[in-house]
């Protein structure tokens, strides 16, 4: 059958739900689609307290923010279609969806792609052994499925994902043999690293993983120090007895649907890969398609929620649900909050990358005229 809605949102994670709530607040009809059988995206595995300030939910655990957001969406009449795969996006603002093995069509005035991201792999001898997994996978296992993926963990990558997941594996009763980082410094927040170090977890800076070994599953990992160009230095190898290797080497935006929609893209390695160009209010090169969250460049859940709200306001305005003046006010408040999250030694690079995306959009737009 064919469904009709004002706004169709792909992805019921922090960006998608936040956008849905904004549109619903302005009286718009919203349908949110998610392939998972539970809403919340990756928020429900974020059991740590978030940074930011009060209006970002600082000091509150991600899991609680997820519960609040979901409740607000339900109260506001947002329709969330779970276990529903959006397999295609077609001209005329049509989505192809599959639910319970049957395909349907959704016609929408505006579409938001908030499909999130996937973890990047890292190839090395033995990386295909059972026990080598994404750090996010390990996090899902302990915090959602309540099963330890292993008992003795080595984490590759000291970005916030690697640090936070390692800490949460400790909380779940595993031991962490170390964090391996290619750079000569910790990549994520020092406070996250300090929490691990206080538990005696060693951080191997300027190191890389050489090999995973084991009979049918990971039994040990070989790491080595790296010199210039990340080349391993011979003779510095050491073998660690671990049963699990968590790869925290970055995320890449899930841009299958933006590609299918032929959105103009830019390749920005520091934001995870190919990103759909978008204006400062999250509208892509197709005026009926918006993007928000990790699909619009890898950041944190707090920024994903703000970007979702921005896209929501932007879509509500385009649909005539809210006046241009009110939309400007609302967007201004959101942009101020986003601005607060994109400053400082970690945030500056993300802000500059986001500006590059918007500049790319403007250049693309100028060429169309």
């Amino acid at each position, binding site marked *: 059958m064919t469904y009709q809605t004002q706004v169709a949102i792909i992805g019921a994670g922090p960006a998608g739900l936040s956008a849905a709530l904004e549109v619903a607040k302005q009286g718009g009809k919203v349908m949110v689609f998610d392939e998972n059988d539970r809403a919340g995206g990756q928020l429900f595995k974020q059991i740590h307290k978030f940074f930011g*300030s009060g209006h970002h939910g600082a000091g509150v655990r991600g899991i609680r923010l997820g519960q609040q957001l979901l409740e607000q969406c339900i109260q506001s009449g947002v329709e969330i279609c779970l276990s529903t795969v959006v397999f295609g996006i077609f001209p005329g603002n049509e989505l192809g969806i599959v639910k319970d093995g049957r395909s349907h069509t959704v016609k929408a005035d505006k579409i938001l792609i908030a499909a999130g991201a996937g973890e990047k792999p890292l190839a090395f001898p033995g990386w295909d052994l059972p026990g080598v997994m994404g750090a996010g996978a390990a996090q899902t296992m302990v915090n959602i499925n309540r099963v330890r993926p292993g008992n003795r963990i080595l984490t590759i990558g000291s970005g916030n994902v690697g640090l936070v997941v390692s800490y949460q594996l400790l909380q779940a009763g595993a031991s962490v043999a170390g964090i391996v980082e290619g750079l000569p410094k910790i990549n994520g927040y020092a406070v996250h690293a300090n929490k691990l170090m206080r538990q005696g977890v060693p951080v191997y800076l300027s190191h890389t993983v050489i090999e995973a070994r084991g009979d049918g599953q990971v039994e040990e990992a070989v790491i080595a120090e790296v010199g210039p160009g990340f080349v391993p230095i011979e003779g510095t190898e050491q073998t660690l007895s671990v049963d699990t290797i968590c790869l925290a080497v970055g995320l890449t935006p899930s841009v299958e649907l933006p590609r299918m929609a032929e959105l103009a893209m830019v390749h920005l390695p520091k934001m995870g890969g190919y990103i759909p160009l978008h204006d400062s209010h999250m509208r892509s090169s197709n005026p009926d398609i918006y993007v928000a969250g990790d699909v619009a460049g890898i950041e944190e859940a707090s920024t994903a929620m703000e970007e979702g709200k921005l896209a929501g306001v932007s879509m509500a305005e385009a649909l005539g649900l809210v006046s241009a003046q009110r939309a400007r006010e609302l967007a201004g408040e959101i942009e101020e909050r986003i601005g607060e999250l994109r400053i400082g030694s970690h945030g500056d690079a993300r802000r500059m990358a986001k500006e590059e995306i918007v500049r790319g959009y403007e250049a693309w737009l100028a060429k169309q005229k």
Partner: protein
Amino acid sequence: MACKTEIKEKKRGPLAVIECTEDIPCNPCTTCCAQKAITFEGSINSLPKLDEDKCTGCGICVARCPGMAIFVVDREYSETECLVSFPHEFLPMPQAGEEIVASDRQGKPVCAGTVHRVVRPESFDGTAVVTIKIPKEYADQVRGIRTERGV
């Protein structure tokens, strides 16, 4: 009239020690403090500053800091002992009176100590503020206890 005590008495009792080292956007330490003892100059990216005169060492900020980077140290708890409070989110939860090995910022064992107090109200949402009693010379070194776990 001779004035004997012109020198301002050094503040005694528990005081927050903020070990926040990076300009990350975060401010719960300032908003949770009832005494308004923690402030920023400029944006929420600046490093927090503690007004030692206002701080009562209550430890709310220890539980609230998302980076778990605030401690409370009472250097002069007794002639020979100090108290160090730190956030703790591991099981089993330490119990008051329990003998522990106190560890430093790298998790290295420093000295023996005793759990003085464990505060873990529902509002802390799982984070406990654990206070341990240790020899006073380790006040600047000890920042927690390790939870040995796994295999």
